[in-house]
């Protein structure tokens, strides 16, 4: 019943927020003094509190960067933890301004849920974790298995597709949060746990006995994850999109937290000057101050620094992977800031 109340409240919000939702998000954010940011709050590397209670991860960093770009102060963020099922209603009803909650870009979500995708902060794919005692070596052997899964995700859709394509059967055991999913797997309510691969590694380390389970080699889907905004406010979409682009471009141009002040003072490279705001009208074009990108990079570092800080500890190497820059064999490619 609690869920119904939440959803009914969200629907009521939709009724009341006639215009508020769709235009003028930047003005709303400015008058509220904070960016309302929807995250999971329990996915290490993406969004999880550190031991001081501060939210950490590449999803959290997107919001810190946007807050810094707008206010020049990365602390002006209010994090709201959402389950997979709640997230889109929360965004379209105006409860949050940005949704960087390890959310996959798909056509249906983009075109039919009243939301818009910006770009990607991590490109992932779905995998399977199994108990070693079953002796399974490939996902193709999983016919007849019970599979723990988080409800309301692309994960459950890919799973259905994969088993249908391969003519296999399975029984889903669908939980609400990843903690419950992990506990279910640990306690033996299923044989297999499936999730985005970036999370399998972290989930495995949280098992009672991590060495009792292993991750199968198959990657069964494409999961481009990135921040999402409400449909219908293009200016706000541009701000979020170009803040992320700025972090990626900064890496490409060799701008990082250690040298950005130096570069701001003395760089003669016009590309760098446009990013740090000493040349051009980039900030003004977006409706922000000239040092929007400078503040964002200063707050969270360039994309490479973010990756190194949050994703590398999960044991996911970047060099040559899809998440590397296009100049190094990856597919991260941010359009030019000019």
């Amino acid at each position: 019943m609690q869920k119904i109340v939440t959803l009914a409240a969200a629907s009521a919000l939709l009724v009341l927020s006639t215009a508020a939702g769709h235009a003028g998000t930047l003005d709303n954010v400015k008058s509220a003094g904070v960016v309302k940011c929807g995250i999971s709050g329990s996915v290490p590397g993406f969004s999880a509190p550190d031991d001081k209670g501060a939210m950490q991860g590449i999803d959290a960093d997107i919001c810190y960067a946007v807050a810094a770009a707008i206010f020049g102060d990365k602390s002006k963020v209010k994090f709201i933890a959402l389950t997979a099922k709640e997230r889109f209603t929360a965004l379209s009803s105006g409860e949050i301004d940005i949704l960087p909650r390890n959310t996959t870009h798909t056509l249906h979500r983009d075109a039919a849920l009243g939301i818009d995708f910006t770009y990607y902060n991590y490109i992932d794919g779905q995998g399977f974790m199994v108990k070693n005692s079953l002796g399974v070596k490939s996902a193709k052997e999983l016919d007849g298995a019970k599979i723990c899964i988080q409800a309301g995700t692309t994960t459950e859709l890919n799973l259905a597709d994969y088993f249908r394509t391969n003519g296999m059967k399975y029984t889903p055991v669908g939980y609400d949060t990843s903690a419950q999913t992990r506990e279910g797997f640990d306690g033996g309510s299923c044989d297999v746990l499936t999730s985005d691969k970036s999370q399998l590694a972290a989930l495995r380390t949280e098992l009672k006995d991590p060495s009792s389970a292993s991750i199968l080699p198959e990657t069964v889907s494409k999961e481009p994850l990135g921040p999402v905004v409400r449909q219908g406010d293009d200016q706000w979409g541009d701000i979020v999109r170009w803040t992320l682009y700025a972090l990626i471009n900064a890496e490409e141009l060799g701008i990082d937290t250690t040298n950005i002040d130096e570069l701001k003072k003395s760089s003669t490279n016009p590309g760098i000057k446009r990013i740090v705001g000493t040349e051009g009208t980039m900030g003004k074009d977006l409706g922000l101050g000239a040092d929007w990108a400078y503040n964002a990079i200063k707050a969270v570092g360039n994309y490479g620094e973010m990756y190194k800080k949050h994703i590398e500890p999960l044991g996911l190497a970047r060099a040559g992977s899809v998440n590397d820059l296009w100049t190094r064999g990856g597919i991260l490619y941010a359009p030019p800031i000019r």
Partner: protein
Amino acid sequence: MAEKSKIPLHRDPFVRSLIVQLTIPALLIWGLYIMFQNTVENLARGGIKTSFDFLGEVAPFAIGFSPFWTFELGKSTYLDVFIIGIQNTILVAVLGIIAATTLGFIIGVMRLSPNWLVSRFALVFIETLRNIPLLLQILFWNFAIFLAFLPGPRQSLEFLNSIFLNGRGLYLPKPVVNDWSGFWVVLGVFIAGIVGTIILRRWAKQRQDETGKLFPARLVGLGGIILLTLLALLVTGGPISFELPALQRFNFEGGIELPLPLFSLWFALSLYTSAFIAENVRGGIQSVSKGQTEASEALGLPRGLMMQKIIIPQAMRVIIPPTISQFLNLTKNSSLAVAVAFEETVAIFAGIALNQTGQAVTIIFMTMAVYITLSLLTSLILNIYNRRVQLVER
């Protein structure tokens, strides 16, 4: 009549109340309609087209537990998901109501027992269960008790090589009819047994009223039913056989599977609600005047019989109304199921289907309609029963 016609229309109480009673609902409906229009328009502006069309589309995800409906991945639609959700909600609600009522009555009577230990036990039971949040109790049964203590499929507890219990659920043999004509004979005998028992009981009651002699009609009837049915089974050569659950590579297949989440939810809902029902029962019993107890004691009735024949029937009229709302609460509380992966209406329809289709207005509307209908049906049935109990009293 002549006097009445003198009253001007605007002061005629009948006309006035008619106008008021028509205007208020009209305003309410109009308000709701505006709200609905507004929501749909807002959603449309955000790119969400509200309609019922999605119900005919193939559901792109699987449902694990649908005992009364076939779910086939790639064929079944969102409408099937809706139907399965309702069925599972009703299943757990009915199971829960039966268990909670039985347990609630026992605990409620124990609460008033003259035995200190028994009444203390009932008190602790009630106070503990009533005061721990239900969600916590559901999680407790699922994760801390069942999953923690029940073994994996390979080490299942087994009875007679045909019933298996493990951390995934309970697996039972499934009856399969292999000779329909024989089956009808057996069924006929069984029904005849029940009818016979009813007649026997009527006769026994009449005899008791007339002569005061007791006859154990219930026991004799039950024995008769069992014996005759067994005999019919034997004569027809066993028209029913059983499909046994068998361990495959990962799980048991075949037979009837009752998944663990059903038990976690059922246990938690029944225990939690039984504590409230026990309090209703206690209140009901205490509302019966003490004279009744004294009178039946004077007659020399033993305590059990006194409860059954004198006190409880009179207490019923006080017990039933608040117990109806406990039944409704139980039904609504079953929506906490998603925490343990039980697939009822809120979990799979208002949860998964809403998330995958984005049809918030339609889906929430349909879900609310389900709960309202279930609540009204429960109240209706129990109110009819209540009226009968009340009349017996007068």
